[in-house]
């Protein structure tokens, strides 16, 4: 990334593959680059060089429109800020991804999911009428409604107190297991990270060595859901190994 006359390196060359059904935690301190990595993995952003595959689709070659389509078909999100649409009711917020994926039974699914997260009686409420924990439960329901292959969660408990946070985490993992979703979780909370099958650590834009080895070791190239080989250092031309 170019800032005035300096080149800022956000991510060092790295190689990460996530297998289908796997749950992986990306941990690291603030500014370590874990959120940048997540946005590239999810196809929200593009690396300045390198390759990203999601469900075997080359996101790095796709324009925004194509990446949108990939997200609509395969991806679910849970954000730290909940990011619900304030002028839509809880149910309508939940239905959105299903509607975008053209699912005919969006409403029934939404209602069922809201009931599952314990909000059966709050379906017609607006986000502003819900507590933080309730809003995040709506966001979780929204994340699972379109039956995504991969769920990206960015500090899902960051804005919640520890008790509510715990409840939210339980929900995410329950649904994750139940739906068989691949989970990519970004957090600086070690306890939360420990609940994932695998943990990688970001530090100054680099994935720490031992974890990458673990990652490579665990790679099953046919079942790989998401893999990234990213090289954001504009100064060097070091080639990046590629899996898949």
């Amino acid at each position, binding site marked *: 990334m170019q800032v005035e006359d300096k080149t800022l390196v956000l991510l060092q060359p790295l190689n990460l593959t996530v297998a289908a059904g796997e749950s992986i935690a990306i941990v690291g301190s603030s500014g370590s680059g874990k959120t940048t990595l997540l946005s590239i993995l999810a196809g929200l952003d593009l690396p300045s060089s390198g390759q990203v595959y999601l469900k075997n689709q080359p996101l790095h070659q796709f324009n925004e429109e194509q990446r949108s*389509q990939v997200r609509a078909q395969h991806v679910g*999100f849970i*954000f730290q800020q909940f990011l619900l*649409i304030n002028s839509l009711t809880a149910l309508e917020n939940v239905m*959105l991804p299903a*509607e975008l994926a*053209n699912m005919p039974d969006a409403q029934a699914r939404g209602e069922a999911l809201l009931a599952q997260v314990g909000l059966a009686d709050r379906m017609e409420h607006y986000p502003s009428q819900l507590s933080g924990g309730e809003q995040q439960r709506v966001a979780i329901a929204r994340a699972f409604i379109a039956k995504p292959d991969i769920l990206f969660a960015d500090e899902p408990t960051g804005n919640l107190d520890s008790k509510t946070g715990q409840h939210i985490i339980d929900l995410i993992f329950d649904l994750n297991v139940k739906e068989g979703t691949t989970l990519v979780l970004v957090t600086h909370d070690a306890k939360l990270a420990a609940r994932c099958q695998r943990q990688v650590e970001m530090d100054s834009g680099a994935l720490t060595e031992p974890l990458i080895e673990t990652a490579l070791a665990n790679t099953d190239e046919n079942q790989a859901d998401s893999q990234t080989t990213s090289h954001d250092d504009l100064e060097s031309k070091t080639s990046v190994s590629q899996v898949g």
Partner: protein
Amino acid sequence: MSIVKEKASSMWFTQSLRLLHHELRRGELTIIFIAIMLAVATVFSLTGFSGQIKYAIVANSTNTIGADRVLRMSSEVDTSIIEKSQTLALQYARKIETESMAFAGDNMLLSELDAVSDTYPLRGELRIKTSLTQIASVVANAPKLGTVWVEPSVLSRLNVNIGEVIEIGVAQLIIAGIVTDIPDRSYRAFIAGPTVILNIADMPKTELIQPGSRITYKYLFAGETQAIESFEKWIKPQINESQRWYDAKAAQNRLSRILDTAEKFLSLASMLGIVLAAVAVAVASRRYGQRHQPNVSIFKALGASISHVRKLYCLHWTLLSCLSIAAGLVVGYGLMLLGANAIASYLSLADAPLTFVPFLTAIFTGLLCAIAFAIHPIMTLVKSSPLNVIRGFSQEKVARFGWYQLPPLLALFLLLLVFSQDLVMSAALLFGGVVVSFILLLFGRGLMSAGRSVGTKAGKSWHLALANLKRRASENSVQLVSFTIAIMLLLLITVMKSSILLEWEQQFPDDTPNHYLINITQDQIQPLKTFVEEKNIANQGFYHIYRGRLSAINGVKTVDKDDDSQVKNVEKTDDTEKQQAKKTKQQETRQGMGRELGLTWRTELPDENEIIAGQWWQVSDETPQVSIESNIAERLAVKLGDELTFTLGSDEFTVPVTSIRQVNWQSRQLNFIMVFNQSVLEQFPTTSISAWSISDDNRDMVYRFLANFPTITVMDFAAIMAQLNGIIEQVTVAIQLILILVVLAGSLVLIAQVQASMEERERELAILRTLGAKGSLLRNSVLYEFVALGAIAGLMASVGMEIAVYILQSQVFNMSGSFHFQYWLVGIGAGAFFVGLIGMLSCWRLLKLSSVTLIRRTM
């Protein structure tokens, strides 16, 4: 599969409707809704209203003269003119106009008398009803001999019915019908009374036509354009200075011009309202774009395609605009009725048809606003990146100047053009508006910066408030300019209205004459003199009056600049004459008076007159001489010793100027521009004029006495003044109505701006709270910020008002300029209060939030 596909294709539609429905219900779209609605309502009400005023003016007077051309004169026409018109196969009609008392038993009424020939009217329709119960009127020419048609109020005021007899002069005539339409009626406000129409052949029976009577003879001509034009070519050189030849366009009289000016002012003020409403739409639509940015990012992050988002928001915006436009039409219609109602007693708009023009103009305005002002925000909105969901929603900085400013400017220009239908004026307004705004902006910025340095010395809340004001200076400048202009106009109207009315009232002491008696014959003077002495009625004596024209100065024939100026001058008040005297003193050295003058002779210098050059003549001095009023002398560049030539009927005489008088025109004295010594005018036939002060108590007694002299015309000045005051009052109401719209639009801009700065304000308050600022400090700092903004607008408005009032007073109304510091306080106070109130109300929800909520919402 096809069902799924169909559902998918309409999903954006459903989602768009859903969003719109919720957002409308939750009041999230209120500002933009009101902004578009206001723009539409303003345009609709004003286009409709001014259209109806125009229609009423046209219908009541100006453009119909009952013929293609009219020759108006104070004596009968030479037969050669009629013969010529007949050789050209022109149609021709005659009309005699005068004022006279009408009597029925003990009742009397001053009326406008129209004696018409059988061919009248040549153009337009004279419509009458022959019974009160008759619904439809019928077209007529002249009444049969021995009968009259009257306007309805004659019946009620004389307490008579159709079929009964009234007396006009010394003639007894039967009322045969009611007049509903007179094609060439002059505008009603300054006319003596309701109209009575009689056959011109009955006129001699009334004995109203006597030497020196105020009689107007009109000769109406109509025919093929070519014939009319060749007749015009032939007749124009023969028209002398005491005659007028005019067509419909030149016939506009004074009141219609006043209304026309008022209507122009209304248009200008309303354009300001439209511009402000458009600015409100612009600000609100930018806010709309910013507000929806997170939604678009979320939609996109969840996989919505650009086309999905584009369709969704285009529909959203279109529906919103359509709803606002529809609401605007309803509100605008209401406002139009309100405006028409306000001036209803002076101008009946009931018959004026409501055309499609205001509808179409208003809809066009709404669409234009909705498209031109929203195109950039919506394009930016649709482009919102899904990455924002991770990175946060920073408001994208827009370049200060760029192509995106073009559509709004073009739209504004188009709006002004459509509304004014005047290319030059629209361009001037837009350019002038930009320049004035720029000047106000500079001053405003200066004041806001000055406020900042004052603030550092003031208390904590003020410090914070003024720092914020300065920091948000560029956002604030829009509302600063709009409030300044709105406050300035309101102050201007208030100050001008009260100072004009006050000045008029102050000028007239209680014994000021309130009635003029015109057309007094020489043998009537003695009984009248005896009467006023016996009854002790204050009066100004009797003046002989002769109607004549100034035809040459030092042997050089006077010319009028053009026919039109002749028309204008006839209608000018003495005040504006003085004004014009100043303006034109240099370039029009041999400019004539352009009208017939009332001439008189005196032995003594009249009251309220002062000789400023030369000398007043001795009573015994029989050398012909004239004394001229100073302003006119200046305007005509006449000096002592100059020889003036006058035409009286067919006679011409030349006299030297021996004195120049300064006359107090503001007094309601009988004043004369040209006063001669007795020997000059004695030989000519004359009538006399007098001014009496008649109190309400003895009005009846005086009227009854005057009924013995049917040929004398009585003009009730008080009634005319009351009418004039009434008109000023009504026009003011109409203008204030518009200014209320302007203030509303300005408020909307303010609210929209506050809304746009809401997130930023939230963040600031959260930080300040976290740092331990007390609630009262925060509340006061927000309050003071708006109060200061309003006060600055008020201050600038007061200065602007003072300049404008000075220019108007000295240049237009010819009054002495004065300062109005009490209104400065009003302006500053009102600005501070109003802006403070609106600002506080729009921030209220924010200030009510508890610290915890505030911090949670923004962190």
